[in-house]
């Protein structure tokens, strides 16, 4: 069984702060990590391999330094690592990203493809399902439990707003995972040794035989027009006086709104 895990190296957004004067992100000193949801995807792949055999291949698209994310995944226990890196990939939106990943994954003879439900920097949750469409295979989003894996099929629990669905799918399949699925393991000593030695396969746009019209900025239907901080509310009322007077005003206001 070939299990492919798609990961992304992201800035740790819980560490990102905003400069209040310029309304810009302060990115200095923000560490790069494997997208936390992808950690659960790697763990899921390792658990499936332990039960059903096969190998786990991690793949990412990114700048050269994304290699360190792949090595971290190998340290957890992944067998092989593939890095899609090329200046031509820069500026990709989700459409171009999923097309590029698809061009690589279609050559890997994957039975199961696992992604985190979304990346914490973009939060779009689109690359997984878009890739499944390009691969012409079924997908299941928001998987919270893997009930059973067999030769030709899989049974999963899919998290919904009102509970969960138990979904069966034929293989090959792509699914995206939520945090509830598992607890990602720490790298073992053996894994750390393997991570040092593993040869990372690097593939460019030419290697992928990717259509130049469908990758990078040119292949991206969406564009970022601008980035900004949220606007201030228009109906703001400034409370005046001592603390007690301010609270009095507030409580009276609540009363006039029939909340008290």
């Amino acid at each position, binding site marked *: 069984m070939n299990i492919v895990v798609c990961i992304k190296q992201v800035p740790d957004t819980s560490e990102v702060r905003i400069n*209040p004067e310029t309304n810009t992100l302060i990115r200095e000193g923000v560490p790069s990590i494997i997208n936390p949801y992808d950690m659960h995807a790697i763990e899921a792949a390792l658990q499936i391999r332990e039960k059903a055999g096969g190998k786990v291949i991690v793949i990412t698209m990114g700048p050269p330094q994304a290699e360190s994310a792949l090595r971290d995944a190998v340290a957890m226990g992944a067998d092989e690592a593939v890095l899609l890196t090329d200046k031509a990939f820069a500026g990709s939106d989700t459409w171009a990203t999923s097309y590029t990943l698809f061009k690589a994954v279609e050559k890997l003879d994957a039975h199961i493809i696992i992604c985190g439900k979304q990346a914490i920097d973009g939060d779009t949750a689109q690359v997984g399902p878009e890739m499944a469409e390009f691969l012409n295979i079924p997908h299941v989003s928001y998987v919270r439990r893997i009930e059973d894996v067999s030769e030709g099929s899989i049974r999963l629990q899919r998290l919904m707003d009102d509970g969960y669905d138990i979904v069966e799918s034929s293989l090959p399949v792509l699914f995206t995972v939520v945090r509830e699925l598992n607890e990602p393991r720490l790298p073992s000593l053996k894994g750390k040794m393997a991570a040092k030695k593993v040869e990372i396969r690097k593939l460019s746009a030419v290697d992928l035989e990717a259509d130049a019209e469908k990758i990078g900025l*040119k292949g991206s239907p969406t564009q970022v027009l601008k*980035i900004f901080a949220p606007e201030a*509310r228009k109906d703001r009322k400034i409370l005046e006086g001592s603390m007690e007077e301010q609270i009095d005003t507030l409580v009276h206001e609540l*009363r006039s709104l029939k909340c*008290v």
Partner: protein
Amino acid sequence: MKEGKAVITEYCQLCRACLSVCPEGVIKEVLEEGQQPAAQNLPLHEYTGVWVFAERRGGKVASVAYELLGAGRRLADERNAQLSALLFGASDAEAQELIRWEADRVYLCTDPIFESYNDEPHADLLGLLIKEHRPEIVLAGATPIGRSFFPRVAAKLRTGLTADCTSLEIDRDTGNLLQVRPAFGGNIMATILCPYNRPQMATVRPRVMKRGRYDQNKTGDIIHIDAEGLFSRTKVVDTVKEVSETAVNLQEADIIVSGGRGLGDPKGFKILGELAEALGGTLGASRAAVDEGWIPYSHQVGQTGKTVCPKIYIACGISGAVQHLVGMQSSDIIIAINKNPDAPIFTVATYGIVGDVYEIVPMMIRKINEMKGR
């Protein structure tokens, strides 16, 4: 920086954030020949009309569908176009109801393949309909369903999709949809465009848009769609209801009292609980407070928690990171209590009090109870 000049390294991912944030406006984008995104499908003017996917779950239309109809009506009017709803696996009566909520037309498919939720038939049918009728804008709720199958449709149609929008406006000059969404883990907002491809697709967060007008007498067309040739390689074998009571209470609450990292201590939620009780409200929390383990995740409001829209939202010791604001800023009235006068929460607050939660909240409780006693 090299010799006093900024240099783009291999770290640059062409996110273009630098263009809009440069204080001097000196960073410019110079596209080389052939670099322009020019992946147009058909001439843009051949696409017209606004479509709304009316999601169903548990045998009824989800409330986000009515919110989308409200937003869709406004966009359609601005474009002098029709508003259509897509309803899969429902009855004529439900379609009629969507018309009363301002749809001009409903594409209805009653096939039993839509009885449970599977991505492939949803994506395949919507893709076919879009190819045939060429709408300009297509919207769905940013729910587990909309966020799961809309990407498949966008991939098929070679068009852009913007997730989790909190605001949608039309640029009058170009007809482009200005799609605003949180970015960088909800640290800041971004406006996204899809200038060269149609339709422009977006998912919209529930409880952000307001419902439109309900008109008992409104009439429209119901167009029945055949599900011929649709298939699904996934199968739902069971559906288990499991909704936490807090989650329901939060989303339906008129008053929410929320606490954040500024409480400094899990005991803070005890005092906030008393305020919530005095006001007949429900307890919420910021991600920071949940991450600290002070209160369960089911109380979390924000991008990775619940989106709420109460009449009154009282934020105590919450600094107001964008990821929290996007989950509560459409509340009617926001009251912010925070020690730091520069906390961003004050920019979205209707009323702000700068001070210590532990001093202010007990005083509020006392005064509210006094007032009730009168």
